[in-house]
């Protein structure tokens, strides 16, 4: 079937099998490979992207379900001149990553959280990241990074796709 998705502000259209998952559409059709396939069973959250502004696990969404919708991947957060999103800056400043595999999903889950709760408590941050696993177990710095991003005011209004 023909699927057309607005990815990071640009239209991406392709003829795909009906069973194509959004994560594969993003990696193979949109050529955006930052979104990782981790567990493939909707547990780990490495494939988290925003669909119409909300975090979703793109390994458990059909490309057909995203047809006509807006998707933002981690590649869509920085400005076109390369200036990083405040959440990305905070992850770097607080060393919120070790191997980096879970990072795109962690960052997108954070952007989704801060869009609805601009100044979460540490407990709220931990609970909002329940669906994202870090196999390096680097959770403390990740939580620190989210709290730092919140302090810097990384709210929805600063989200800059495209």
């Amino acid at each position, binding site marked *: 079937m023909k699927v057309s998705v607005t990815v990071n502000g640009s239209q991406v259209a392709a003829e795909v099998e009906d069973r194509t998952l959004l994560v594969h559409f993003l990696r193979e059709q949109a050529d955006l490979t930052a979104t990782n396939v981790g567990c493939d069973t909707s547990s780990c959250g490495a494939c988290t992207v925003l669909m119409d502004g909300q975090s979703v696990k793109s390994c458990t969404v059909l490309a057909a379900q995203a047809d006509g919708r807006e998707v933002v991947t981690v590649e869509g957060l920085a400005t076109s001149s390369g200036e990083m999103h405040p959440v990305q800056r905070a992850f770097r400043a607080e060393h919120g990553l070790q191997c980096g595999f879970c990072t795109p999903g962690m960052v997108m889950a954070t952007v989704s959280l801060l869009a609805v709760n601009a100044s979460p408590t540490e407990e709220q941050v931990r609970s909002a990241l*329940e669906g994202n696993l870090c196999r390096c177990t680097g959770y403390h710095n990740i939580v620190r990074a989210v709290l730092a991003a919140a302090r810097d005011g990384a709210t929805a209004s600063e989200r800059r796709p495209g």
Partner: protein
Amino acid sequence: MIPAAFTYQRASSVDEALDLAAQGGEDAKFLAGGHSLLPLMKLRLAVPEILVDIGRLGELSYIRDDGSHIAVGALTSHDEVATSGLLASELPLLAHAAGQVGDPQVRHRGTIGGSLAHADPASDLPAVILALDATLVARGPSGSREIGAGVFFRGLFETELQPGELLTEIRIPKPQAAGWSFQKFTKRAIDWAIVGVAVQGDSVALVNMGQTPVRASAVERALASGAAPREAAAQAAQDTSPPEDLNAGRGYREHLARVLVGRALEESRSRA
């Protein structure tokens, strides 16, 4: 992992969804948020040939005060249920439990109707609507019918819904008794409950203590005859048939049921 090949059809109204399902017969399944169905399809535990996507039917997504009861559209997401101001004041048990389903990403996509129609006894919401004495509304080719929560769940992943019938609404009476509690025990936050319990007033329902969600009838009888919470909770495992799996054997689940029911009854009374 990708699902086996299927044909995707998108419905733009409930009537069209019913037509598409009728044409597909037993090979067709409805797709709402897909957070129960797609994982099963990846594992080839479900292999439908046709998916009828009802995910865009705005007419099935609402939370409405109908006087004596609250009506929740089947396509309302867990996140919408969890953050609804109306539910927070009228049915806090449902709102709270929906906020405990899976994780934020799952709650953005998963729907109340999908969870109930899937009928996994380890899921949170089936036990919650059982404790709340809800009525489920289904539409099929020959019209609409109402099914009580007490008879809706027939077995493991099996409900009263007939092929081609679509769950459209959940009607929940406003509780007479205010106290409520929802408790579940998991190893990781995102896991299904090893055992869970939903309490509203003196109604008690259990998660993952049988092939379906079950009412803890012995506990309810004990409460009705004046037993204290801990005393009544000692009956929590009576007449249950909990599964044995990697997480827990029967005896451990029975123990958890007694402990969690005790905690839930005490918390519920503290809120009454």
